[in-house]
């Protein structure tokens, strides 16, 4: 049951599209939401943390471009590399 000032038709508009573009990953010990770009890069969209200090870390800033680095031999997990580092 939804209790909101936003009308139902606005909440449930366009329900099927774009659902798979976002993914949650653990980056530097914090949970972040990544948005998949049209090329094979990802952008940090949102940081999911209650720790205010995490929001000051430059590697977790929303807007940071990331690329997956495949390391098949080393570890089964995916590692991320920052692209738009200054």
């Amino acid at each position: 049951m939804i209790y909101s000032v936003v009308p139902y038709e606005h909440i449930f508009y366009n329900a099927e599209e774009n659902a798979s573009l976002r993914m949650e990953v653990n980056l530097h010990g914090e949970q972040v939401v990544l948005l998949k770009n049209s090329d094979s890069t990802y952008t940090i969209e949102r940081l999911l943390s209650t720790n205010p200090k995490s929001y000051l870390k430059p590697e977790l800033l929303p807007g940071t471009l990331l690329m997956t680095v495949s390391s098949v031999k080393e570890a089964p997990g995916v590692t991320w590399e920052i692209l738009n580092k200054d």
Partner: protein
Amino acid sequence: MDSKVYFADRVVEKEKDKEKESENDKLNNIKELGTVEIQDRGRNIHCLTVIGQIEGHMILPPQNKTTKYEHVIPQLVAIEEDKNIDGLLLILNTVGGDVEAGLAIAEMIASMSKPTVSLILGGGHSIGVPMAVSTNYSFIAPSATMTIHPLRLNGMIIGVPQTYEYFDRMQERVVDFVSKNSSISKEGFRKLMLKTGELANDVGTVLFGQEAVDHGIINEVGGLASALNKLYKFIDKYHGQKGTQKKAIRKSKKTQPERSNKQ
């Protein structure tokens, strides 16, 4: 190999010596000067921001900005559990959302023993109202608004009186929670919910910053600094208690401020 171990031992010994020295200094201060060094205790607060829709059982379409139940609940548990975290600042700017999820988060915050303070910026509408009052003390920005309106029906509706009764009971959960955790009475809150002539296409009331305080829903009009100061005061009070079992800071109610000192 042996020399390395020896070296490590020496380092540990040196550190122990340093600790002893500083302890001796403290004792000397008490003996010679009659002063006790007060340890500066850094207050470590965590901040939970609630934005957009509160998402519960149903995943909402991606054009909605959402605060997800499964993110927030474990974070609240971690905040309560972690000894290094002293308090929680809840920042709200929400349009409402799932009743069950909103009430669950509100109940979790209301039952935390650590100090909690909320600050409403922009809007704290619908199910955002119980969330706002769930903390020990609540602030609202002067320009922020709260919309209080009845629950709406959606989906297939069977035209029987029981449908209305069911809805009334669902609504009662929200009314109950808000009246228990703030100074507004059940009747007062229900009156605001069912008021006509305030909203263009709905029944209900829009309260601006000061009005929410006047109705007794929110404790005070303020901003970030006032919210943090209040939280720091609560944290000092919480840590000032003796014994290992610390009592939770009591909910500040506007009408009975004295009661907050008694348990």
